């Protein structure tokens, strides 16, 4: 492994900025987040980066490394042998400073999703096979990398029309809970805009939790919308069975 690594890190704020180069000693097993911490401690104490767990659990450290949307704490420096490592903030959200972006829009949308409404009181009786799927969705660490990469939000900035894959996964998790009684299908078709997803699967590719966002989450939601709106009888039957 090279003894010295070169990072080119975006420095700037709402008004703009540019990449700046830093050279640091390589330490075995170092991840990009460690490299940024080294820069903070020795060269630029005001370099702004979010992090928390350094274990891929909290979803704070999302960024773009050499053009790919990744977690800084899960990306090893030696994946980029002999390359300059370019680190930039997520593109889809406004920059606050350096690598830190304003992700508050996501929390606004999370608040607008109707909460879990169980049919009965705990303790619940539920089989493991009936909750496997929703446990997959609940692995989400809210890193918003999928939101960052989804072209509806990234290229078309259609945040008023489509709430993005993270919100779809949250709704899928609630809709598929064996004991939930709320109905989010109107919301999905309307304000949340599931119809805007054209199944490119880019979100699934970047998800650090390996959640099969498109196939297991969004497509079944689209089917629910189709059932209710284009097949009124089917919709009614499904509702009675929920």
């Amino acid at each position, binding site marked *: 492994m090279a003894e010295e690594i070169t990072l080119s890190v975006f420095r700037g704020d709402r008004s703009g900025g540019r990449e700046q180069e830093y050279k640091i000693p390589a330490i075995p097993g170092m991840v990009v987040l460690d490299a940024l911490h080294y820069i903070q401690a020795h060269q630029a*104490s005001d370099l702004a980066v979010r992090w928390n767990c*350094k274990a891929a659990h909290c979803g704070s450290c999302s960024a773009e490394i050499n053009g790919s949307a990744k977690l800084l704490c899960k990306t090893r420096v030696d994946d980029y042998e002999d390359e300059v490592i370019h680190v930039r903030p997520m593109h889809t959200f406004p920059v606050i400073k350096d690598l830190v972006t304003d992700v508050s829009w996501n929390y606004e949308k999370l608040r607008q999703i109707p909460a879990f409404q169980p049919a009965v009181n705990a303790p619940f009786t*539920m089989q493991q096979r009936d*909750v496997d799927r929703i446990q997959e969705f609940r*692995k989400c660490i*809210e890193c918003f990398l999928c939101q960052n990469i989804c072209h509806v939000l990234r290229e078309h900035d259609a945040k008023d029309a489509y709430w993005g894959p993270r919100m779809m996964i949250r709704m899928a998790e609630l809709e598929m809970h064996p004991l939930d009684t709320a109905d989010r299908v109107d919301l999905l078709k309307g304000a949340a805009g599931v119809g805007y997803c054209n199944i490119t699967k880019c979100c699934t590719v970047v998800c650090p939790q390996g959640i099969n966002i498109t196939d297991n989450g969004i497509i079944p939601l689209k089917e629910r919308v189709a059932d209710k709106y284009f097949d009124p009888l089917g919709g009614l039957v499904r509702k009675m069975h929920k």
Partner: protein
Amino acid sequence: MSENIERHAYDVLIIGSGGAGLRAAIAAAEGGAKVAVLGKSLLGKAHTVMAEGGVAASLANVDPADGWETHFYDTMRSGHFINNYKMAEVFAKEAPARVLELEQWGAVFDRTPDGKIMQRPFGAHTFRRLAHVGDRTGMELIRTLEQKILTVNVDVFQEITATKIFTDNGRAAGAVAYYREDGRFALFSAKAIVIATGGWGKAYKVTSNSWESTGDGAALAFRAGAELVDMEMVQFHPTGMVWPPGVRGILVTEGVRGEGGLLRNSEGERFMEKYDPQRMELSSRDVVARSIYKEVQAGRGTPHGGAWLDITHKGPEYIKRKLPGMYQQFMALADVDITKTPFEVGPTIHYTMGGLRVDALTCATNVPGLFAAGECAGGLHGANRLGGNSLADILVFGKRAGDGALEFLQGSEGTPKLDDAEVQQEIERVLKPLGNEGGENPYAVHEVLQEVMAEHAGISRTGPSLEEGLQKMLELKARAEHMTVPGSRVFNPGWHAVQDVRNMIALCETIIRGAIERKESRGAQWRLDFADELDEYGKVNFVHKLEDGEAKTFSAPVSEMPTELQELFQLGAAPGIAKSAKKE
């Protein structure tokens, strides 16, 4: 210079948005109070998110003989009987209800074959007791609370750091904080305050903790007159990663041993046979951590100074299903396939048992109107915490602290007053290091602090070394008065670090002072010069309080259990086991 500050008024101000803080906020809001909750991170990202193994509650879903008595018994024994027994009692009784409530709010735990919440074994728990979701239980817990918070009337302030708690005639009156995003200040007046800011594992270099764990709330409350207890008790988790250096300290969940992992030294010997032949790998954390340390000291360590942990006999399929996070963690960060080879582990700082001294039922500190819950509070765990007991702790006492604050509001009159001059003075203090040059670098001070703690107040301790550590800490405290950082107020980590370091120094001084006073070995405190556990020290807790700006340490008697609880320890076995033996 007078700052323009944002002003807020609340009934209950909660500092900390980890599990304890969110649970307290829900309780206070459901009681009708106007509530704010502050956190240094974004919502749902607090340290609690890292918890892996599970939450301990005697639901008795897989071992019907379990019950609150046995959970209480295990907790007191692991704490070496200096716990606040009253806390341990309500804790053991209420944990099941707190876990079920999470299910009601949307948490999806792993299931038993008959569809109930699954429970796994963990070190020093008599029964299979940890409700869990794979190896991401903390994430499930905090996500559920985050989702619940969005449905109740609570104002959530994200990425904001409280720096001082004010009092009015001795009563808690409010706090000042700055937004990390742009350094703006906000002043919160409150009728009651709950501290839920977590622990201070970042005082040590090799640690499993997140950056947030700098003990802010405990230090702020200490400066406001609150008492700290059991500060010498700092938990080493026996199994952190040791190689490569970039990952040193990251946790290897106890679940690996829970699922059958074996510990061996460099000679291939299953060394736990020597130290705890009965419980072996699933002995309590203090014992396993010390055993690994002793093996390494005796020259039987692994190449990078740890022990081998081996789970290969369980087969790749089982390992990937039960411990997916661990499998990935080692593949991604260490290039090690744990399904094929043993891997190196060694002790890492994990949890701080000590903290703010509170009333067992209301979580009230000695400062009227000031409450504390979660890892920042002391008493429940005594000299050593059981795995899984912390997630249950933050639920049980988070709720109790919220309820305690509500009760206080009902019994108190008026709103305490904040003194503007005092507020301005604090803001000037916080701003002083910024943009100045020539002072100490906060990162360098933090590094020295970690070195001092590792060398003088680590896993093994002696009187002379602790005294030397105390001197070094006091010198560091003086140096830290003069930290400076470049840059502006806009999201400036160097400036944030100045506040963190100052808080850790205040707490580390009490850790060392407590360790000096406790001239015995008990739980996490291991004194090479006093190797035995001594009866006289089993009767006292060490308490710290600021008097005229100086930390003073005194001893307070451990409260004595009533007869019916004492009897639980005289059955010849854990209550659940003794009872079922009798039935047969």
